[in-house]
C-alpha cells in the first residue's frame, strides 16, 4: 500500500460534494435520496481509510462503517415508504409542488 492517505481524502471529499451538489440541484425526491446515499458513502470511505492508515491494529472505523451501512439501509426503506405515500396522495414527487404537510 504505497498510496498516500491524502489521495483517499481527495476522493471522498469530491464524492461528498458531488452528493451535496445533487442535493441542491435535484427536484425529484428520489434523486435527493440518491444524493444522500452518495454523501453517506463518502463518509464511510473516510472512516475505513482512517482505520486502515492510522490505526491498522484496531477495528473502530470498520465497525462504524458497518453501522453506517445498517442505518443507511433503514433510512432508505422508511424514506421510500414516505415517498410512495406522498406520491399516492399528491400524484407528484417534485419538491416544488409539495407544499402542505396535511392532506
Amino acid at each position, binding site marked *: 500500500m504505497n498510496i498516500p492517505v491524502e489521495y483517499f481524502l481527495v476522493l471522498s471529499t469530491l*464524492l461528498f460534494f*458531488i452528493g451535496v451538489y445533487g442535493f*441542491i*440541484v435535484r427536484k425529484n425526491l428520489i434523486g435527493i435520496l*440518491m444524493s444522500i446515499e*452518495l454523501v453517506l458513502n463518502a463518509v464511510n470511505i473516510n472512516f475505513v481509510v482512517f482505520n486502515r492508515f492510522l490505526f491498522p491494529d484496531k477495528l473502530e472505523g470498520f465497525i462504524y462503517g458497518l453501522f453506517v451501512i445498517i442505518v443507511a439501509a433503514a433510512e432508505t426503506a422508511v424514506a421510500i415508504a414516505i415517498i410512495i405515500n406522498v*406520491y399516492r396522495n399528491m400524484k407528484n414527487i417534485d419538491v416544488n409542488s409539495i407544499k402542505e404537510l396535511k392532506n
Partner: protein
Amino acid sequence: MDLFSANNIIFFLLATIILVFGFLSVTTTKILRAATYLFFVLFAIAGLYLFLSYEFLAAVQLSVYAGGIVVLFVFAILLVKNLGEETEKVSFQKKLVGGIAAFAGVVVTLITAFNYGFILNETADEAVESVNMQAVGNALMGVEKYQYLLPFEASSILLLACIIGSVVVAQKNKEEKR
C-alpha cells in the same frame, strides 16, 4: 514511487469510476439511469474496501447497498409515474448556486485535510493483511472496551422498527377508500 504499479492502477481506476458515475448520477435527467449509475458507484466503493483488504465490509456493501438499496430505488421509481421520461429542467441559476457551494466546500475541506498532518502508523505501509473474521466477531459480540454488543442489538431493534414503520406508512389508507 512507481507510477504504473498495480496498486496505483487499481486505485485510480476505482477513483475514476466512483467520481465519473457519481457525477453522472446527480446530473442525468432520467431518474432510472441515475439509479444505474448509483449502482456502479456503490460497486466501485465495494472494490475500494477490497483494495484496503476489508473483505467483510466489501461483502456487506455489496449485499446491502448494491443488492438491497438500489433494488429498492428501482422499485420506487417503477411505482411512481412517468419513469424514464423525467426531464426535470434545472435552471442555470440553481446549477450555479449548487456548483459554487460544492466548490467552496471542496476547497475548504481539502485545505484542512492537507494541512492537518496525519500521524500515519508505520505498519500500514507494509504488506496489508486482511482482518481476521474472528476479530470482527469478537468486536461485535462483547461488552468490554472496544466491543460493540449494545449498538449491535440497538441496530436490530432499529431495523425492526423500520420494518413496522415502513409497512404502516406505505399501506393504503382504508378510511379514504370508503
